């Protein structure tokens, strides 16, 4: 029951998905879609496990006064307020994301700036990573940094203004050598995925189940 049944479930689900792909007739035609919807539902339930894990983690920190427990109060308060705002807006406006609802306010003035600023940190990190890592140690590394520099310069208005055909060069690098290597990597990667999937369906790879 603990190990056998899950292996059978994986096998049957995997094989059904593959077979259904080739059969348009009912009930196979929309089986893939149906399974994915089921997956979304399972994921929705599991979200409760997730939020519970997060709350427990921080409650524990608060209870044992572990280092930084004060900030844990911030997280827990954030969760509680958001849940209240969310369910209130859902109830009062029929959808949580109604314009003017408290839930939407939370999204617009807290999540959006946090999200976009976190995202914008990449502008800094991309520069520091380039500075540190792009050194012409080997032929490969040299070509990498030259390709990076050419594409960078070819994409901006100032690069265009230099009249060195930089945009054309950048486009060529993207369309020819870049495409070629990407294809090679894609072919390898997805062959790997096929083999991995077969191992999983056959039950040879079963790390995700403990005994």
């Amino acid at each position: 029951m603990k190990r056998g049944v899950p292996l059978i479930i994986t096998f049957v689900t995997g094989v059904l998905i593959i077979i259904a792909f080739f059969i348009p007739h009912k009930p196979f035609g929309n089986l893939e879609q149906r399974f994915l919807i089921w997956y979304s539902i399972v994921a929705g339930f599991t979200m409760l496990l997730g939020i519970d894990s997060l709350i427990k983690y921080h409650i524990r920190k608060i209870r044992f006064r572990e280092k930084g427990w004060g900030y844990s109060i911030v997280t827990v308060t954030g969760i509680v307020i958001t849940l209240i705002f969310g369910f209130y807006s859902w109830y009062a406006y029929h959808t949580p994301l109604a314009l003017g609802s408290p839930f939407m306010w939370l999204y617009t003035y807290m999540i959006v700036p946090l999200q976009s600023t976190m995202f914008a940190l990449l502008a800094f990190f991309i520069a520091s990573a380039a500075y540190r890592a792009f050194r012409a140690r080997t032929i490969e590394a040299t070509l990498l940094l030259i390709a990076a520099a050419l594409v960078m310069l070819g994409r901006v208005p100032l690069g265009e203004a230099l009249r060195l055909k930089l945009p054309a060069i950048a486009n060529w690098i993207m369309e020819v050598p870049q495409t070629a290597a990407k294809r090679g990597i894609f072919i390898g990667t997805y062959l790997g995925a096929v083999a991995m999937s077969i191992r999983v369906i056959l039950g040879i790879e079963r790390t995700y189940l403990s005994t």
Partner: protein
Amino acid sequence: MKILEKIINIDRRVIFLLIGLVVFIPLLFKIVTPTKISEPVKKAYEAIEALPPGSNVMISIDFDPTSAPECMPMYIAILRHCFKRNLRVIVLGHIAYGIPLGEIGLEKVSKEFGKKYGVDYVNLGFRPGYTAIMVGMGREIRDFYAQDYRGTPIDSFPFMRDVHNYNDIEMLVDIAHGYSAELWVQYAGARYGQRIIIGSTGVVAPDIYPYLQSGQIEGIIGGMKGAAEYEQLLKRPDMAAIGMPALSISHFFIVFLIIMANIGFFIRRRKR
């Protein structure tokens, strides 16, 4: 040679500071370099410019916060153009969490031009479902938007009383980060002959060019660069136009950093 060592092992916070400054300073001083105006943007501008005052322009906010740096400037520029020419603006959208961005833009630009809610513009908000609404509005807008986003009946706004379907919309502007542009062309454009302008992220723009060539849309504003061109046509450089130098300089600066790092690296290697 201490300096050399310092350059090679520079504290990354110095790089952070420099990148920050390279972006911040051009923005602060509003340095604007003229950008070559591309044909699709020029067409979009001229289409709006040719509308008689009092025309109704519908703007669909089909982007969300992650693509706001690209889409917001073109939305603001279009709004300014409309209000400057005394066109009336009707905002709506198909992405629930894109609508606040529409409201932020309206609030900001309406103040600049002294425009009034319900007289010069309205915000209808979000309703789920793309095609049903796009097709349905060909018959009657009230089937979907009997009220604006605040729940006020749209008939309480004088100018909206005469707006029933696409016949009463002189121009539709879709600001899109996804495939909504195609749907508008297909359902509002082809079916009801609605005139359309598309503003989109740099990634989506190439997919839309065929519609411009076939005459199904009036113009395209693509990416931050397209927005910068539009701002330049408006003679009102803003976020995109003043972002352009920052964009260029920061790219050149990163390349410069890479070169510096390598010079240091080579000198040190030779010394060993």
